[in-house]
């Protein structure tokens, strides 16, 4: 109780300190006056009375100090005093304080911004109930190189019913829907789900209800849940929508509920679904639905991911034995296995490496910033030798002086950190503006408490890091001695100290140059990769090409001839538009990101043995196109012919293959012409028609610019209709301008069909490299920042060195050295530091090769051109940074410099 009261009195004192001091002063004065009067009354002379009073009282300052000290938290008071002093000293040198704070703000701000993204992607739990226990269950066929593909209905039932490790397994499959109604039809992202998915995620509805398990049956599955966003955008947030029907792919579905605002679900970076529909699950003994379902599972309490993986592997092995799952036609083992992946890993796994590299890069930037501030502090330290000596002489211990200096550093760091938070907020907005959409999966990237804690920690560590060395440095000097020994010795001591200073600051500069070398090298390698990527020929001409997708629902377009007829009519109408030069349709566009392939067979050949000695099928990408596709995209015809209108349903089944496929399976050295040879999708089976190869066309980049072309086969729409087709329209004017007219033509044919994924081909090409561009932009920005900071560091050290050598330079000039000699002298010093730094940086990057290589494209991590170029760049920067101080050195007036002594 007393302790608390005492604490309270002390705290009150902190706020009444000024008043306390005034009152103490007055009290002592009154005391002395009273004594004085008494002494006078006792008959002393005025002088005697006064001095007797003073003598009797003793040391007044001490009395005041000690009285005050009774009340103080010693450390708190020291701290306040240190802070006041620090502020005063910053005000005294605003230039220093501003440069330091801005430097730190940039460093800490960049780190905070990147950490915020890292936090959102790699640290914060996914926005589902107990999300750490959610996992995905994937099929894989290891011998075919197929990983993470979907399960069949039968697989789902088997996994769900046989495992002991999951509370439950839910299934879903992404699907897009045509949403029609009173207004313009549109294509919306959707998902078909098992009824237990939403409860497993811990999601509820904002309105209505979720699905019941009997809605996972044929005929009961015409119900739908809408996302909040779609409900607001398209239905004006009408609560009366529950129970009404909406048209999905031409079939009526009853709206049973609205999902909560902000609820998102995406496992592969695609758009979060706007419509949720139950899957009609049915027994599937032949596993014909292979690849359709994605499975999410919740681990039972206490079960680890490894344990679950082991269990699922056992189940997969048992199923393989029992049903000969995923065997080739001659019993070949495809390497069927099941993989269990944590949901977070599934969603963000591909971002980790890039993010960690970026985090490392900003860490480097901060280290460089620290080195700069430490440099500034060391320069200040030299100037403050005398102040420190006086403080020491007045009785401040080394620890006390160090504390004072560290308080200054921490205060700088905190100022920098606060400004850094603002930089981070601003930088984050910029970051998200330029980031590819998928970097911000599943939720907001925000400055939460964890980010703030990170920033605080980084700030304090930064303050210690850049403050400790200078603090040790200054206080090491034996201040008392130097004062006592008189001016000369003191100066000598300072001079010695300054030499040490220089070497220490030189070491800092070398470190800075080395760190920026690593960053600039990394950025340069990325830039070279990116340039090479942009130089990659996609295999077609993207200029003045616009694309748009259409899907015909099975519900209305049951027969193949209906599908073919619809697209023929549409293409005919579009072709007639004035600005259209040519038009065609394809089942999927190039650069679509898909890397898989379909197996196929070649007439007269067994399925090709692989290195592993297992018979596996050949793989190819398989597209349906209309007759003018190659001409419209300007894909060159290498041999044979293109498709014509005559390649229709009843005529000879034909195919056109790409060059990679032709070379891969009919190598030129064999002198066998692939034209006229016959192939078949899938395993050869009797009854299915062989396709005759009639032409060979140039390769296009079907997956992405940085993925090698794979074998590709094209089939004509008339012989292999596809319900989803993408129109490709080559125009004579601005490609986007024709779209409105295309919509009108489509609407005339079927008013419920939306035209979606409308994009200029150039945009598609540009979007396909967006993630790389993002990494590149950030790394380049960090590298530029690092370069500027390093230049400032070199400049600072060289200026300092010149100012220290004024006398020497004066002597040289007086003895007839020309200004060119002096310039060389100083520049050489700067350049030497830079060269050492560059060498260390090169060595460091070589050690990091493995990390960097993953981010590069067709540039080796040890690319000599880049290494030499960047080394030269840093050398130039160092030269320029030392040139300014060097110029100043040449203007030294020998007379002034010599008189200085």
């Amino acid at each position, binding site marked *: 109780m007393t302790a608390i009261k005492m604490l309270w009195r002390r705290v009150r004192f902190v706020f009444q300190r000024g008043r306390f001091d005034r009152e103490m002063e007055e009290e002592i004065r*009154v005391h002395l006056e009273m004594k004085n009067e008494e002494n006078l009354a006792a008959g002393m002379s005025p002088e005697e009375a006064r001095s007797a009073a003073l003598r009797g009282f*003793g040391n007044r300052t001490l009395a*005041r100090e000690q009285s005050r000290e*009774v009340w103080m938290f010693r450390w708190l008071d020291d701290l306040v005093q240190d802070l006041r002093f620090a502020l005063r000293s910053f005000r005294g040198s605003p230039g220093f304080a501003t440069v330091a704070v801005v430097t730190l703000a940039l460093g800490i701000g960049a780190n905070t911004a990147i950490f915020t993204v890292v936090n959102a992607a790699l640290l914060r739990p996914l926005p589902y109930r107990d999300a750490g226990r959610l996992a995905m269950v994937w099929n894989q066929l290891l011998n075919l190189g197929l990983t993470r593909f979907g399960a069949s209905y039968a697989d789902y039932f088997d996994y769900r019913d046989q495992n002991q490790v999951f509370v439950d397994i839910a299934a879903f499959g992404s699907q897009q829907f045509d949403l029609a109604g009173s207004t313009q039809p549109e294509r919306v992202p959707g998902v078909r789900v098992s009824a237990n998915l939403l409860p497993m995620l811990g999601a509820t509805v904002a309105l209505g209800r979720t699905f019941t398990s009997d809605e996972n049956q044929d005929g009961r599955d015409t119900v739908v849940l809408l996302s909040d966003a779609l409900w607001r955008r398209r239905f004006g947030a009408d609560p009366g929508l529950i129970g009404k029907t909406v048209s999905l792919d031409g079939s009526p579905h009853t709206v049973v509920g609205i999902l909560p605002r902000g609820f998102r679900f995406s496992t592969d970076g695609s758009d979060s679904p706007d419509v949720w529909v139950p899957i009609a699950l049915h027994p599937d003994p032949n596993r014909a639905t292979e690849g359709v379902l994605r499975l999410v599972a919740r681990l039972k309490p206490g079960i680890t991911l490894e344990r679950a993986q082991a269990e699922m592997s056992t189940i997969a092995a048992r199923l393989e034995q029992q049903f000969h799952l995923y065997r080739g036609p001659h019993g070949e083992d495809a390497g069927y296995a099941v993989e269990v992946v944590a949901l977070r890993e599934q969603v963000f796994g591909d971002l980790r490496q890039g993010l960690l590299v970026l985090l490392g890069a900003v860490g480097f930037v901060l280290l460089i910033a620290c080195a700069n501030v430490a440099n500034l502090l060391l320069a200040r330290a030299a100037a403050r030798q005398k102040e420190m000596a006086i403080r020491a002489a007045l009785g401040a211990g080394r620890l006390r002086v160090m504390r004072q200096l560290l308080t200054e550093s921490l205060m700088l760091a905190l100022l920098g950190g606060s400004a850094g938070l603002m930089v981070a907020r601003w930088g984050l907005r910029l970051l998200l503006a330029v980031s590819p959409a998928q970097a911000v999966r599943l939720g907001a990237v925000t400055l939460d408490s964890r980010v703030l804690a990170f920033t605080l920690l980084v700030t304090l560590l930064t303050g210690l890091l850049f403050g400790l060395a200078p603090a040790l440095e200054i206080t090491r000097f034996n201040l008392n001695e130097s004062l006592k020994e008189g001016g000369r010795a003191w100066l000598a001591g300072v001079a010695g100290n300054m030499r040490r200073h220089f070497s220490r600051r030189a070491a800092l500069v070398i470190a800075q140059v080395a760190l920026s070398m690593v960053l600039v090298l990394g950025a340069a390698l990325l830039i070279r990769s990116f340039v090479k990527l942009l130089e990659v020929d996609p295999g077609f001409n993207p200029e003045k090409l616009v694309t748009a997708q259409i899907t015909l629902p099975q519900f209305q377009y049951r027969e193949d001839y209906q599908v073919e007829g619809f697209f023929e009519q549409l293409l005919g109408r579009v072709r007639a538009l004035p600005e259209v030069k040519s038009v065609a349709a394809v089942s999927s566009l190039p650069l679509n990101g898909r890397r898989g392939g379909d197996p196929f067979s070649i007439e007269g050949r067994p399925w090709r043995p692989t290195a592993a000695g297992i018979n596996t099928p050949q793989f190819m990408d398989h597209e349906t196109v209309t007759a003018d596709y190659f001409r419209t995209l300007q894909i060159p015809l290498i041999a044979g012919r293109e498709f014509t209108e005559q390649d229709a349903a009843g005529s000879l089944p034909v195919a056109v293959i790409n060059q990679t496929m032709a070379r891969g399976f009919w190598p030129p050295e064999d002198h066998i012409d692939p034209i006229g040879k016959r192939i078949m999708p899938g395993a050869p089976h009797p009854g299915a028609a062989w396709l005759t190869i009639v032409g060979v066309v140039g390769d296009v980049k079907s997956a992405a610019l940085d993925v090698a072309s794979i074998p590709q086969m094209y089939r004509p729409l008339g012989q292999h209709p596809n319900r989803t087709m993408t129109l490709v329209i080559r125009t004579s004017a601005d490609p986007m301008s024709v779209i409105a007219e295309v919509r009108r033509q489509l609407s005339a044919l079927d008013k419920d069909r939306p035209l979606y994924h409308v994009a200029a081909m150039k945009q598609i090409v540009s979007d396909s490299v967006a993630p790389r561009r993002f990494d590149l932009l950030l790394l380049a920005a960090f590298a530029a920042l690092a370069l500027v900071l390093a230049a400032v560091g070199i400049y600072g050290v060289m200026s300092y060195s010149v100012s220290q050598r004024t006398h020497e330079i004066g002597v040289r000039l007086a003895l007839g050295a020309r200004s060119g000699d002096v310039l060389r002298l100083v520049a050489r010093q700067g350049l030497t530091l830079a060269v050492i730094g560059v060498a260390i940086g090169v060595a460091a990057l070589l050690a990091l090769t493995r990390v960097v290589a993953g981010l590069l494209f067709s540039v080796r991590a040890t690319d000599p051109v880049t290494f030499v170029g960047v080394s030269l760049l840093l050398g130039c920067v160092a030269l320029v940074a030392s040139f300014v101080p060097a110029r100043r050195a040449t203007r030294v007036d020998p007379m002034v410099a010599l008189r200085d002594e």
Partner: protein
Amino acid sequence: MGKRKGKEKGELLPGTLDMLILKTLSHRALHGYGIAQQIQKTSGEELQIEEGSLYPALQRLQLQGWVASEWGQSANKRRARYYRLTPAGRKQLGLEVSNFERVLAAIARVMRTV
């Protein structure tokens, strides 16, 4: 500051100043100078205290809550700070006096025996 000359005036035993102040204040409230005067007078000019040291002691006692202070008018119309004993201070005085007497008696016993 230099050393004090001789020991003709009694120096305080360490730690007794607080007790003396408490005791002095037990009759009535006094200002700092008054306390110094009072101690000197009642000790028959035997105890010489450095007046300056009174003030830190008074702060200690206030911090402990044994003494309270307020500004008032002195006999010759001066504004001065008056210190008075709080109830807790009175209790503390009793404690210190009995403690002091015990120690004194013990010292006296030792001095007689040896």
